[in-house]
């Protein structure tokens, strides 16, 4: 029982990171109907920027995070700008274009920061919380709190602000939105910027948990994307539930199937998607007949 619960807690803590990654995927997808396959590599860039300002410039962790969010957001804007000619045209081509961006980002990270990576010390060095013999890292609680706050802010932005409402309108019907005077390009750029900022948040937070290196984006991206699909692509609550579900699934697969955990995780994922292709909450997608 204790192993079971502790495994679950371990899964949730990484799952919270996957959830942030998944949310970035979903936000971009629901706004412009694009799957950004470079998202995982944007997470990696965010992790590097955050750790650089934290370790090399010696800024406080929170400040480093804010800078990373801003800079990475700009990278998002850049990617959107380059791929803009393809928007609302060829879905598959854009998807492949983002794969190309991912390849470049990884190589650029190697050129700037080297191939070997770096360890980031835990900024919240407090002993783990103990309940009923279970141990929960304080840092995990911080991650969970930040994830929750980010989700609430995002939902507030989308539902209560004018800009957010405009983005929702673009998501529903970009032609009608243009007709009522909403700037679709700007809306897409904001979606991409927010998506990249979410990626940087995930990357910055995951740094002290793991190890920052140029290839860290691959797995984080794939698992985060799987989480977004599992929850219902484009749905914000779906991204949260799906991301955490992938984390937990992964954790138990590791415990029960040892070295074969990836095999099991992806087979289970494929089966769930085959049975329910639109995920737990259903796909929230742009209707492009």
């Amino acid at each position, binding site marked *: 029982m204790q192993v079971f619960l502790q495994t679950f807690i371990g899964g949730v803590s990484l799952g919270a990171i996957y959830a942030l990654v998944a949310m970035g995927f979903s936000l971009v997808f629901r706004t412009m109907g694009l*799957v950004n*396959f470079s998202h995982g590599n944007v997470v990696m860039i965010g992790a590097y920027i955050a750790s650089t300002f934290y370790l090399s410039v010696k800024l406080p962790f929170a400040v480093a995070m804010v800078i990373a969010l801003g800079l990475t957001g700009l990278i998002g804007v850049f990617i959107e700008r*380059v*791929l803009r*000619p*393809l928007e609302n045209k*060829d*879905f*598959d*081509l*854009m*998807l*492949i*274009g983002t*794969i*190309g*961006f*991912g*390849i*470049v980002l*990884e*190589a*650029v990270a*190697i*050129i700037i920061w080297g*191939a070997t990576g770096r360890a980031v010390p835990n900024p919240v060095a407090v002993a783990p919380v103990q309940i009923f013999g279970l141990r929960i890292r304080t840092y995990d609680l911080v991650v969970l709190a930040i994830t929750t706050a980010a989700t609430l802010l995002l939902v507030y932005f989308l539902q209560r602000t004018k800009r957010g409402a405009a983005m929702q309108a673009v998501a529903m019907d970009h032609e009608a939105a243009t007709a009522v005077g909403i700037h679709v390009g700007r809306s897409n750029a904001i979606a991409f910027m927010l998506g990249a900022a979410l990626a940087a948040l995930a990357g910055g937070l995951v740094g002290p948990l793991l190890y920052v290196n140029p290839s860290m984006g*691959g797995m984080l991206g*794939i698992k985060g*994307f*799987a989480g977004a*699909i599992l929850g219902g*692509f484009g749905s914000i609550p779906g991204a949260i539930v799906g991301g955490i579900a992938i984390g937990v699934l992964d954790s138990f697969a590791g415990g029960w199937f040892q*070295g*074969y*955990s*990836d*095999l099991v995780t*992806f*087979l289970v*994922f*494929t089966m769930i*998607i*085959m049975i329910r*292709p639109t995920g737990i909450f259903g796909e929230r997608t742009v209707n492009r*007949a």
Partner: protein
Amino acid sequence: MKYRIAGIAALVAFAWYLPYQLDSYMIHVANVIIVFAILAIGLGLVMGVAGQINLAQIAFFGAAAYGTAILTTRAGFGFWTAAALAMLIAATIGLLVGTPALRMQSHYLGIVTLGLALALTNWVTNAHIAGGAEGISGIPAPELPGIDLHNAYFFYYLELVVFLLALAFGLFVVHTPLGRKMRAMRDDSLAAGAVGVEVPQLRMTAFFLSSIYGGLAGVLYAGLIRYVAPESFSIANMFLLLAMVIIGGRQSLIGCVVGAVALSLLREVLVDYPTYAQVAYGSVVVLTVVFAPTGLAGLPKRIRGLLRRVGWLPGDTGPVPKLGPFLPYAETPRPAAEPILRIDEVSMHFRGLKALQEISMTVNAGEIRGIVGPNGSGKTTLFNVVSGLYRPTAGRVYLADKDMTAASPHVLARKGIARTFQNLRLFALLSVRDNLLVALDQTSILSNWRYVLWQAGVWRHDQSLRAEADELLQRFGLTDFADSAPGELPYGTQRRVEIARAMARRPSLLLLDEPAAGLNGEEVRQLSEIVRSIRASGVTVVIIEHNMGLVMSLCERVTVLASGRVIADGTPAEVARAPQVVEAYLGDSAMSEDVPEIVETEAAR
């Protein structure tokens, strides 16, 4: 033609004498390039030709390479036996990976195929039989009597022969019915289903084909390197392969080969700077998708277009293509007035929206039936239910007394239903002739065994289809446009191509969704002539139309829909006078101007 044969001969001669130019390392590089070229052809077939995102091509490759390695070193099979079995393994995995394609598309398919590829890598990393992370070494070289295939130079010729056969077969598939259907499915899977293409089975076939190429490459790889390890089948290599196909031009198999050769050589040149090579090919992928989506293969055409615009090349000097007259069908005696289509209490709900509510109507054989109604009244939804795109929430649809409610579009197409679409759904990258050829081919997916065993039969079948297509083009006056892409044609001509494509099925029931939308007066007159002739040839026609003049003059009976219900049904004159119809139309501001037109037409009679 003469140039082409000379070009091919020169290339083959070049490939044949290439080894004499190369040292022992460069011949190895050439051998690896050929393996990647075969892989790229497979990926081009499934992604570029059939439009299915497949990030598991590297897994098919790995499965066959590992299959060969395990069967030769662990089970003691000879190389060729092991290779045959390994191909079988790769094909099985291809079908398994293709299964999700039945249910999902684009990005879903992307992540699922990627996940399955990772699962396979994970398995070989762990499994004792696959040698774990250290892989399997000591794979024996293939043996051929009299030829020492340990020698990289002889191996090159083996690969070259396999490659040429694989390429020829790939091109053969692309330009005959199977490949044409795949391209049609890629351009518009809904329209493909509506002209009888068995879309789900065809997706599986595409994955199967690509896995055969993956398997072929894997076997050659095992024989060439004689060592396998998990890293060689990693996601990074999958993305590299993807880059080859995209840069080369995914819709052209030759393009895929060029991409594979070009990128491999680039990597070889930058072998000491792999990070910069990565930046280079990643950027080229981004630039390609933005500026040259057709890749290197599409460049000559773009350059020609550019030169023509600057005036360095003469433009098309031939006569301006013209839409010919429609040649009417031979008339057949009108069939007995038996119901051919019966819709019984059909309802269609989308989440909260009730698009159709308990619709019932009957269409008799030989009739021209009009369906009118304000925008959003459910007309197109009704067509979508009848042609099998939607499964109704309640109610039944009978085709000549047979219940066809749950049938899929391609089954209904084979039962004699053909349709056109409100927003034109022609296969954009296929020529007008190819659009018709897809619809003309009535063979089922099972007949594709002939591709393996009896290619001449495929060829002959294709020739007879082409003859039929020429006749059909002639009948619809489209001969001048036969080789144009649909997008280059005037709108009215595209409408006519779509009707021709629907008639290529030789349907018994033709559904036309707003065929007159966007046509000028003369074109509407021609349309009306075409529809009458189609009816006279024994085909029942159901037509959705906003052009009341056309409806009133053409249709014998008219059904009026409003808010998802039938509100009137009768002859045009009866319907036009019905108070509920007038009210429904007045309630809809967009349509209110149509009402006087009805009266005018009535008066003119």
